């Protein structure tokens, strides 16, 4: 999004903290599509995304003075947004987990899912993403979709880097099943696991 305001993101945030009534709105307008994408892809639901983004922006608005410039403003905003999304989904416990390939999942039996079609790949992937556990989804959104480093995301979500790597790895494997890239457990040559193993590293 283009912006006529020549100030940098951090300058806008500082100006807001100092009482500039226009600065925060400008900062939000500058990044709102990306923030919206993060919220929508993390929550998987339009209304949840709007509510979580509202909560997040309210928090950012109130806590701007705490921004210390140790990361990019966008990273700071993404952290607030994704944590608002995760908190919201955890409260509602609305997410539905998808078994790893080979775990007992009715959808995993039978033929593999049809390969995704080019013109609606993004929509299909977004729908599959929405079926992941929220922690895996949030990690994938930040790492694979928003391009943050594993270290950044670990700091954003307050967990170890290995945990983020594990969440991403397992999330991608689940997506592989949901998107039909992995053969189903009943298929020839497929070797399923017998039990769901422990949690993340």
């Amino acid at each position, binding site marked *: 999004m283009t912006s006529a305001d020549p100030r940098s993101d951090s300058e806008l945030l500082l100006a807001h903290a*100092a*009482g500039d*009534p*226009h600065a*925060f*709105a400008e900062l*939000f*307008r500058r990044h*709102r*599509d990306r*923030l*919206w*994408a993060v919220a*929508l*892809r993390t929550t998987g639901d*339009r209304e949840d995304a*709007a*509510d979580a*983004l*509202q909560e997040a*922006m*309210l928090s950012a*608005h*109130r806590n701007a003075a705490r921004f210390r410039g140790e990361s990019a403003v966008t990273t700071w905003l993404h952290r607030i947004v994704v944590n608002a999304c995760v908190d919201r989904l955890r409260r509602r416990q609305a997410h539905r987990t998808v078994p*790893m390939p*080979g*775990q007992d999942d009715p959808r995993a039996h039978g033929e593999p899912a049809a390969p*995704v079609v080019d013109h609606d*790949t*993004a929509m*299909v*992937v*977004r729908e599959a*993403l929405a079926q992941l556990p929220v922690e895996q989804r949030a990690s*994938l959104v930040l790492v*694979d*979709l928003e*391009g943050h480093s594993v270290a950044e995301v670990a700091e954003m979500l307050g967990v170890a880097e*290995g945990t983020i*790597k*594990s969440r*991403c*790895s*397992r999330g*991608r*494997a689940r*997506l*592989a099943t949901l*998107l039909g*890239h*992995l*053969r189903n457990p009943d298929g020839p*040559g*497929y*070797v*399923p*696991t017998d039990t*769901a*193993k422990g949690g993340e*590293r």
Partner: protein
Amino acid sequence: MSSADVDQELLADYLGGALDGTPQKDHVERLVATSPQWRAAAEEMSAALDLVALDLAALRDAPEPMPADIAAQFDELLAPPKRDPLAARPVARKAGRKRKWKRWAAPIAVAAAVLAFFGVGRLPEVASTMSGGSAQDNRGTAESAPQADQPMPASAAGIPMVRTGAQYTRGSLGLRNSSTEKAGELSYRSESMPATSPWQRLEQPPALLDCLHVISLALPGRATLVEYAYFDHKPALVISITTTDREWRFVAGMSCGLTGPDELYRAPLP
């Protein structure tokens, strides 16, 4: 080795680099090197993950603009507040006045003006009623406190208040049309009151006025009701505020007035 020994999550961790630097990496590496089942599973998953990477790239590159209606709402919520000169005077507002949403962008350095605007400086003027009927025909007659031997500070100051102990959530907060119109619904629920007030600090007039003051900075408007209730099962003040454009419910936590409004939520009434 039994086929059931292939641990897909462990294999995913291995392929994704999550085991790097751990003894488990060597363990899985040996399994992949020596077990046909593990090798086959690893090859299959690797190929699948390559396709997943392409799919995620497609999603990453797909535009995801904020819908226009939501963008418009945020624009209004973030717009700097404009004061309604009529609001500073206790006169009726013009019917059909165009209203806009004002929300978070309250200026910081207008404390005194906002204080007066909000009504803290003229609390008796904004009193309405909690005893039913319209605000107009009950003006200045704040509802008697739920505990008559313990007058509520806002009531004493002029803003009607009520201690309902009502349990609010985000979903329920904006459902009531008007606190004054629905005064009967906000009756004191003695059965829900704990022996020790959970709102004790904010029942003290200085603390409440401090709280209302900082709220006025966040949402300039006219307080019409202070309700001692719960929000998401935590004690909270639910304050009805009329701004130039609409009515709001502003939810403040128990730290309100200490370092800020301790805002938990706000919602415009439909």
